[in-house]
């Protein structure tokens, strides 16, 4: 466990850089994290992040299939929004832990 300052806010992160306390999350943090991967977050991205945060808060397991059926975007769209890590990167920017999911 470590502390990291992102967008001027000090937050708890794990070894892989995922935030361990979703309550510390702000939109600015998401923007800053995505910038590190060269991704500029827009409205669609934030809809996905909100979806993941809500699902995680309800204790649901997260999969790309679930996001694909959410009505926000399809799976292809999800890959376009978060290239190279549709669930991994989106969860990271959403301020939640990396989902332990194979789908």
């Amino acid at each position, binding site marked *: 466990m470590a502390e990291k300052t992102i967008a001027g806010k000090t937050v708890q992160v794990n070894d892989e850089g995922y935030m361990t306390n979703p309550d510390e999350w702000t939109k600015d943090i998401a923007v800053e994290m995505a910038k590190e991967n060269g991704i500029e977050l827009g409205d669609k991205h934030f809809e996905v992040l909100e979806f993941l945060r809500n699902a995680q808060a309800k204790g649901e*397991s997260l*999969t*790309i*299939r*679930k996001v*694909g059926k959410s009505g926000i975007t*399809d*799976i*292809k769209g*999800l*890959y376009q929004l978060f*290239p*190279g*890590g*549709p*669930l*991994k990167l989106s969860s990271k920017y959403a301020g939640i832990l990396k989902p332990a*999911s*194979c*789908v």
Partner: protein
Amino acid sequence: MSEKESPLKKVCIICAKGSIEDVYATLVMANGAVMEGIEAKVFFTFFGLDAITKKQMNKLHTATIGNPAMRMPGGLPFPTLLGALPGVEAGVSAMMKSQMEALDIPPVDEFLEMVTAGGGEIYACKLAMDMFKLTMADLSEEVSAVLTVGDFYAMCGGENTQIIFT
């Protein structure tokens, strides 16, 4: 070199069998790769072609005879003779599929779409297609092409590439 410095870049997966577990192992590995940003190319051959044949893909079964790991719900051994009764294999297979659905694992047709949505590529083996008298029209739209094994190997070059036979 550690795995951090030299991460896996591409997996080439070959599926030659058509049971639920063989096909799903292939699809989970392919989908898992593209989700991690790893390139994935999947080659279906012999009975594995059932996984990409429109008529068969959502009707896969798991073997209830000759499968020593098969158990009754609750863990008791599954008698081989029971597995031989008509309808038992279909029932067990339906049960496996419903358990996977509960874990958000999609049916085969949708799973193939998930893999290609992430940039994964699906191929069919020419020799096996000829053997089973199949044409491109019999196959899922997610299949990019029918290849010889040589064509497939030609795609499996490059640094940090692994060939996996499921």
